[in-house]
């Protein structure tokens, strides 16, 4: 067993040198890649300046090696007097001190190189500032585990690895490749497809000049074919697009969620997943601010729900601070929920729906302006425009808004509020009332005429609105949430 004395400043594993060097080469490499491609493609340039290019690359490499060595030597960490202390930098020396009880989570990650070298990087998240800097690039797994435990459990050094009993009962989710394929099919395939197309297009437009030069004839042929409306060509393109989208989604799902496992620990959860970058997050359950789960018709067919558990994050958008499970069965989802929200199984929820006026307002403000704007597009016959406006926008939009206003509701029990939203899919957000940070009551003069109001609840990870409910219910809800927060002595994190 590995023993570590964390109270004296220590360096990371020597292999960290290689990881650091690789990281900085990659960082620099991305920046000078276009330049390099340019130099290589332009035939004369490389031949004429061979010596210059090679010596420039060598100088950069030597500088990077020196930088990595200096960085490695000056990177020290320790745990002193209940503070996690990190000293880094050789020109600008910096000491970062984090009190142990401010630490939100400690995650380990492994990219491809780290997997080969068998080291992990360790990242420390606090609820305070942006803490990208607090990460240690290379540690042996055993060492990382000890530090992790020391940081999270406030126990200093020399913790035994006795609580490493992960029985099958505690292993909530384990995704096999076939599960991942199922999940990929139930994801938003078109969105991924469009993203891939966009990426391809942006790469194409960046290097258009070279591509045009080398594939001039092919592009020309292709454009000629496009000009004559050819239905088989359109069909082939469509099929190609769908196949591409599916393949891209499967690849994406595998890269992010490969071999995902969620383990129920004594205090919370441990999530491991990833193909090229393996990450390992440990989250105590009391630090989870809200839980979201969602499903759509396809997911329902496969009995899949995707679950996200969000933690407190300093800035509003930070994917990193959440545990995302792309798919699990309803039964598992329920046991996760019951584990986090202890009173969930025996609480009685009362549901309140959104007023019809919510649909009317969204319908007027979202569907009409675009439908009208389409009519003013130039160079297409008026008949086609009316058709596009009607079937391409107005009807789908109306249906989506109708569904979304029908789905929008909230349910409340003694301690938990559950907010439902979504149009085709359904998303349900669960929040424990005492984890709410502040509440807003909104009412416009238009809402007042109809005796309606909206509520917005702000948590440490996200703010969620409950739009257009009866004003009496809204003010009761407002007063009740405040009462719940103020009377509770439970800690929100």
């Amino acid at each position, binding site marked *: 067993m590995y023993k570590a004395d964390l109270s004296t400043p220590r360096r990371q594993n020597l292999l960290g040198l290689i990881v650091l060097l690789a990281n900085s080469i990659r960082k620099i490499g991305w920046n000078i890649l276009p330049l390099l491609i340019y130099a290589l493609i332009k035939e004369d340039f490389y031949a004429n300046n061979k010596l210059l290019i090679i010596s420039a690359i060598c100088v950069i490499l030597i500088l990077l090696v020196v930088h990595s060595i200096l960085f490695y030597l000056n990177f020290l960490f320790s745990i002193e007097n209940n503070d996690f202390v990190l000293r880094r930098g050789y020109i600008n020396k910096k000491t970062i001190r984090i009190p142990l009880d401010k630490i939100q989570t400690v995650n380990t990650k492994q990219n491809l190189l780290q997997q080969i070298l068998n080291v992990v990087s360790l990242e420390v998240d606090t*609820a305070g500032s942006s803490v990208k800097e607090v990460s240690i690039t290379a540690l042996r797994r055993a060492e990382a585990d000890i530090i992790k435990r020391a940081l999270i459990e406030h126990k200093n050094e020399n913790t035994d690895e006795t609580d490493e009993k992960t029985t099958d009962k505690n292993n909530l989710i384990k995704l096999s490749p076939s599960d991942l394929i199922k999940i990929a099919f139930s994801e938003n395939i078109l969105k991924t497809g469009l993203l891939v197309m966009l990426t391809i297009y942006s790469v194409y437009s960046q290097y258009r000049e070279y591509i045009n030069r080398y594939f001039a004839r092919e592009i020309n042929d292709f454009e000629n074919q496009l000009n004559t409306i050819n239905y088989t060509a359109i069909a082939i393109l469509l099929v190609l697009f769908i196949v591409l989208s599916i393949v891209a989604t499967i690849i994406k799902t595998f890269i992010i969620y490969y071999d995902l496992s969620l383990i129920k620990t004594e205090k919370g959860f441990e999530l491991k997943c990833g193909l090229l970058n393996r990450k390992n997050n440990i989250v105590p359950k009391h630090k989870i601010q809200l839980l979201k789960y969602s499903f759509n018709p396809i997911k329902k067919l496969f009995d899949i729900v995707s679950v996200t558990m969000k933690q*407190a*994050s*300093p*800035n*509003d958008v930070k994917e990193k601070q959440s545990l995302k499970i792309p798919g699990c069965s309803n039964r598992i989802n329920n046991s996760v929920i019951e584990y986090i929200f202890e009173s969930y199984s025996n*609480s*009685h929820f*009362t549901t*309140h729906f959104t007023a019809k006026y919510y649909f009317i307002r969204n319908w007027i403000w979202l569907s009409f302006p675009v439908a009208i704007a389409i009519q003013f597009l130039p160079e297409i016959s008026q008949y086609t425009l009316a058709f596009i406006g009607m079937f391409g926008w107005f009807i789908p939009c109306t249906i989506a808004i109708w569904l979304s206003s029908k789905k929008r509701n909230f349910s*409340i*029990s*003694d301690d938990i509020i559950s907010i439902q939203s979504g149009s085709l899919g359904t998303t349900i957000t669960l929040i424990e009332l005492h984890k*709410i*940070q*502040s*509440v*807003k*009551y*909104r*009412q*416009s*003069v238009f809402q*007042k005429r109809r005796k309606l109001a909206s509520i*917005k609840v*702000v*948590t*440490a990870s996200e*703010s969620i609105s409950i739009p257009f409910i009866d004003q009496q*219910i809204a*003010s*009761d*809800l*407002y*007063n*009740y949430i*405040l*009462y719940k*927060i*103020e009377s509770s002595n439970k800690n*929100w*994190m």
Partner: protein
Amino acid sequence: MLFKNESIDINSLPSIDLEKFTPIEKRYRIIMVINSIISATIITIPIILVSIFNAEVPLYVGYALSAVLLAYIIFNIFWSRISIQYKSYLLRSNDILFKKGVIWKKTTAIPFNRIQHVEVKQSAIAKQLNLSKIVIFTAGGNTGDLAISGLNDQTANKIREFIMGKLKDYV
């Protein structure tokens, strides 16, 4: 009935509808107007100058913009008179509430046991008018924070002291 299985009566909870909010200082209107003038001028003046000195931009663009600028400022002078009446706050034993908005009304409530820290701020103009702004931070980020402008210096500091005193109880 909003809640089932509730041991406390929902009607017995303190309700915001019944309580009296304290309006902010009326002289804060001066700052509201000055702020709107500054923000509008910064955007429009460069374009107006360009229309005067650059022959390619027709002069009427400058005239039109000046007219809009003037109208906006006049509108703000009147509007601030109305909107300031709707800005009010309420300090209760366990939370602080702030109300604002004429057409879109909004009441934000922050319980004291969720406050991270409190700041009192004062701009140069506000200092002349003896006004301060109190900013209350929660863990909810930008949407969770609350800023109340247009308070007397003394009031702002008193509120801060009061909240800080409350914060000590919770730790």
